[in-house]
């Protein structure tokens, strides 16, 4: 008995030593870049693509000697578990132990918002490449936090403009919303409802459905909505859940009866549901590579991405790749990797990205980037459907007016 316990004790001690040893080795590399994304749980799929985009960008940059040709970029990748408290802990760890100068984070807006003040306290750049809640930059702004993805306001506005046009054409009267019960789903739904009230005053919101984040059984929602016979349904359902919801709704013949315009269907879903996605649906996305194949940076990126990972890049890969390049150009403009100077350089800066020449807004560090709407249709060049008749809603057409941002900030105080 005693022997067993002693053995167990030593096994534990040795295990601890191994852990210490493994994490203790840290070569002092010049530019340490942290990545904290939700690698487990609901965010795993998008985050994995994001990491791939980042890795590719870093590889390309390091092949040319790193930032400014002399600072090799070293990546430190952590799992935020899509939980705010874990995200904060991991980012603190990245900052204090791995000495990162910038962190790309997160899949979940709730995590990004929790990380924002930490990055500000430690004076570390914080770039949001997947999470897109407007609140990340709108209220309590941090000069260290930048957002390279169209935020929830911009996306909702883009979707509403498109929907309002169709609604007015077809004389739609009633609609229902279904949105995942978390930050992104909530804010997108709220903004869209507000815009629709302005743009199509005849519309009335009949009911709101809030499936839990991570819901797998949508049957009751589907039949519930169908029973109410709305003219259309607006959805902001999160990634994995969106796939489940659409697959299940389809088997009920939902989309044959009820239009479902303007929901987020990214390149991930286009690939994943290539066979089953209903065609001719009008959808919205954030950074589809096929919309910018005329930009050499995008064509190169797609080529290299395909060579490395043997697949087409999703929006998340594009956005995260862009995040690294925005940072690179910030460093080049500042002519130093000193975070304070890079932060100042990036303020209001115009960057050259796969999505074209885009500028960060001075007021909130939000990249003035486009949202994309289009009709889902097959294309012989790709093994999955893409958007046809793409409408690119520019950042300038969809951003919240600066006066409203200032008002919101005043109200938050």
């Amino acid at each position, binding site marked *: 008995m005693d022997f067993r316990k002693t053995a167990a004790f030593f096994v534990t001690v040795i295990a601890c030593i191994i852990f210490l040893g493994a994490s203790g080795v840290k070569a002092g590399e010049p530019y340490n870049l942290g990545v904290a994304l939700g690698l*487990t749980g*609901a965010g795993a799929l998008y985050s994995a693509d994001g990491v791939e985009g980042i890795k590719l960008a870093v590889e390309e940059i390091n092949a040319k000697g790193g930032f400014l040709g002399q600072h090799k970029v070293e990546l430190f990748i952590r799992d935020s578990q899509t939980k705010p408290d874990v995200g904060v802990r991991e980012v603190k760890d990245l900052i204090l132990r791995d000495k990162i100068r910038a962190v790309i984070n997160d899949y979940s807006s709730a995590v990004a918002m929790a990380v924002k003040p930490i990055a500000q306290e430690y004076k570390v750049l914080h770039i949001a490449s997947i999470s897109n809640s407007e609140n990340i930059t709108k209220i309590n702004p941090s000069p260290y936090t930048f957002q390279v993805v169209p935020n929830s306001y911009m996306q909702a506005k883009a979707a509403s403009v498109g929907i309002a046009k169709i609604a007015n054409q077809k004389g739609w009267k009633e609609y229902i919303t279904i949105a995942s019960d978390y930050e992104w789903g909530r804010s997108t739904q709220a903004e869209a409802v507000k815009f629709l009230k302005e743009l199509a005053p005849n519309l009335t919101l009949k009911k709101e459905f809030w499936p839990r984040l991570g819901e797998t059984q949508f049957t*009751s929602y589907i*039949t*519930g909505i169908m029973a109410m016979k709305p003219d259309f349904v607006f959805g902001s359902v999160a990634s994995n859940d969106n796939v489940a919801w659409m697959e299940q709704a389809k088997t009920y013949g939902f989309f044959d009866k009820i239009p479902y315009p303007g929901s987020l269907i990214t390149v991930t879903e286009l690939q994943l549901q290539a066979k089953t996605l209903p065609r001719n649906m009008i959808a919205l996305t954030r950074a589809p590579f096929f919309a910018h194949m005329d930009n050499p940076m995008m064509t190169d990126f797609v080529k290299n991405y395909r060579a490395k990972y043997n697949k087409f890049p999703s929006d998340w890969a594009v956005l995260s790749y862009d995040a690294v390049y925005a940072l690179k150009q910030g460093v080049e403009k500042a002519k130093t990797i000193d975070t304070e100077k890079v932060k100042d350089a990036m303020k209001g800066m115009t960057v050259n990205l796969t999505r074209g020449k885009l500028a960060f807004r001075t007021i909130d560090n939000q990249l003035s980037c486009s949202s994309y709407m289009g009709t889902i249709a097959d294309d012989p060049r790709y093994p999955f459907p893409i958007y046809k008749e793409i409408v690119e809603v520019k950042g300038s057409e969809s951003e919240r007016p600066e006066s409203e941002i200032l008002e919101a900030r005043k109200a938050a105080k």
Partner: protein
Amino acid sequence: MDITSLFTQFLSGLTYGTILFLVAAGLSLIFGVMNILNFAHAALWLMGAYFSYTFWNLMQDYSFGFWLSIPLAGLAAAAVGWVMEVVLIKRIYKRELYEQLLITYSIALILSDTIKLTWGVTNKLIVRPEIIQKPVFIFGAPLDSYFIFVILAGAAVASGLWWFLKYTRYGHIVKAAVHSREMVAALGIPIPRIYTWVFTLGIFLAGFAGGIQAPIGSITLGMDTAIIIQAFCVVVIGGFGSLLGTLVGSLIVGEVMSFTILFWPEGAMVLIFVITAAILIVRPWGLFGTPMRT
């Protein structure tokens, strides 16, 4: 609300209840016989879904592949369950409650990561055969045609288990073991072997349920954490170890979910926990359980 939409909602609840029943049946069986609350049950359910995807993928060229992959998923999960029982679970039957919970919870963590290592983070989608891609209409109420199969499978599992417990020798032993292990052991019946097989059967049911779940929506990591809690609620409401209770419990949870979504969407989950807590307070052994062990 007209009668058709109420009926539609009832059907939705019925299908959801059936899926819950398939998950909870194994959970309840294992708890009833061995007194082990298996946190890893949903992880094995999810593994079953992934197994079924793999089998379907391998047999894509054959029309029977879709259907065959579901029981095969059950068998593959059962194999994992058997190994789990022989290596680990066997050692904790006589341990304290918290030790059992911690061990099965740890197994759930390990299995989730195993799934991630084996199948990656990409969602898996099973494309259904032509005949079950469209809805059917029952008295004007739409129903996903695959759910007819789901409900039939649920009924088959329920009646199969009932027959097994009522008419077979093993069933009698298992039922006796629910009431008094000591007595069964005294009769010279090898309890450890019975336990191994009951556990394996329970996990077979989990894997089978996973296989059934697979063609509904997509298969993703983390699906298991949500359903395990709901399955616990089902087992609590119905009563530990009672097959009938599990059936009734799942239907209650399924229907409550389905109708609260219609009338009070935000309250669906809250209401489930209120019911569970109320049952525990008034009748800790559940609607159909027997008050014996605490």
